[in-house]
């Protein structure tokens, strides 16, 4: 499987999760890349690859800063995403109940509206828990990979 891990971050935690997932996947898959949403153009999204999107939450349930240029480019020229499959992992803090993990959902909505299909469980990490975000993501990964290996 060709896998692209995309991350949007404000404090760096999503980037760390993305790197850890990349290291884990790199041991078993030849073609794994980790990309910052800040320097990723929505037109690059392709049915040839499987996407793991790792995204935190900022402010009032908003996208983190590094994901904003991606969302703006996406809205300016919405890509055709039929055939694209992805999995979503959101970071947030249950301490702020109303906005918990909402940042990633802004991306999830955009992907779904353009025909991409989310596979596997919607992963979440709660900063108020004492789990490390990477541990939660690594525990989430096998289920997502199993779901992704089933042809669409």
């Amino acid at each position, binding site marked *: 499987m060709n896998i692209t891990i995309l991350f949007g971050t*404000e*404090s*760096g*935690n999503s980037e760390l999760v993305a790197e850890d997932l990349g290291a884990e996947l790199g041991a078993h898959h030849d073609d794994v890349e980790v990309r910052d949403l800040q320097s990723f153009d929505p037109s690059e999204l392709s049915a040839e690859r499987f996407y793991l999107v790792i995204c935190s939450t900022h*402010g009032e349930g*908003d996208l983190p800063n590094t994901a904003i240029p991606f969302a703006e480019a996406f809205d300016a020229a919405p890509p055709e995403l039929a055939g694209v499959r992805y999995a979503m992992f959101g970071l947030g803090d249950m301490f702020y109940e109303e906005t918990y993990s909402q940042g990633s959902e802004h991306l999830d909505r955009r992907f779904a509206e353009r025909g991409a299909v989310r596979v596997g469980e919607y992963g979440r990490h709660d900063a108020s828990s004492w789990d490390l975000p990477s541990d939660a993501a690594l525990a989430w990964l096998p289920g997502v990979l199993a779901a992704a290996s089933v042809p669409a």
Partner: protein
Amino acid sequence: MTTVPRPQIAVVGSGPSGCYLAQAILRALPTAELTIFDRLVSPFGLVRYGVAADHQHTKAITRQFDRLFQGGGARFAGGIRIGDDVGLAALRDAFDAVILATGLPADRPLDVPGADLPGVVGAGAVTRALNAHPDAPTRLPALGGDVVLLGAGNVALDVLRFLVKDRSGYAESDVADEALAGYLAAPARRVVLVSRSAAAASKGDPQMLRELAALPRARYSVPDPAGPADPASPAGPADAGDRTAAARAAAVAALVDPDRGPFPGPEVELRFGAAPLRILGTERVTGVELDVAGERIVIPADAVISAIGFAGEPRDEVGRLIAETPPDPASGRLGAGLYRAGWAQRGPRGAIPENRASAKLVADELLADLASGALAVDGDRPGFAGLPPETRARAVDYEHWLVLDAHERSTAPADRVRRKLPDHDAMVGIARGDAAAPHPHP
């Protein structure tokens, strides 16, 4: 055969900006040899000593920074004050590049008459005491029954939360119990928070206000017209700023909602659109005179806590350099090979995550100087190994810190996550496994 020279880079300050900067440099330049200095024996600066003790979820960011030291990518050199123990010139001789990320450790002074009366306290001093900072006294000054809090940013809201909470509000925290107990023995009966801005335009995060509303403590009122106020955004799509302002106004409205219920704790007045004119008193504080919409109002006060920002502390060479160089959010370059980052660069603005973007900017400047040759790396600089032997011997490394960290966790009372020692020499002794004879200068 040529070898690629390894740039020797020193970061002064191990708070969030110093750590973000080190991450950014190592990502772009994995061969760099980084040393992160701190005057304290513990790393992480503001996260450990500035973030409120009852916000452990924010302090969890240190687990990201631990990676820097765990992976061997960066050396921690604690207990060394650059500009005092080691001169900046000596550091610049030993390293190819030096980045100052020392923060702004002092409370910005109030500029109204009476600001130096006994009873006027900085919010940073309060936060440091509650975090057992080695420079802070172990007890808070007596605040009395009437407390006036100047400012409405996140630091002011941290202090307000402290003033309204009882002991149960600190479960699973690392609060300094001696300081807390001193306050709880005679807590405030009335707190007046004074904000120059209207509620919607004030500086605190809406989440911080919602947290206060959700606490079953204190009764809130807003006596002035600048009050819970509608953000009155014009028609059209609301941007994130509008939504933040609206959320802030809604959070204040929730605080003063008559249905919120009568809770124990102090009466809290939130005075928005109010400017302090002077602090009243002769021997010590007795009140604060405010200008509210052109009207002069006197509020009685036993203590005034100012939460109006932070400033440099010019007590050594590095502190003076930072204090005397105006903030420049666009650049951290003080000269080729000398940079500053974080609050030392941009002023005391933004929460921890916002300093990540700023650290990247400064890292990019340094990398651009390396690429252009403005910053030449010839491989001759010794880095940490070139510092005087007594300095190297005195430096507390990351392994030492882990010993102290384990000690703090293992000695924590039942409902605390750690117990911090407020005495720096004792901390050094424990870190070195020499608890019997703690001494900072072996």
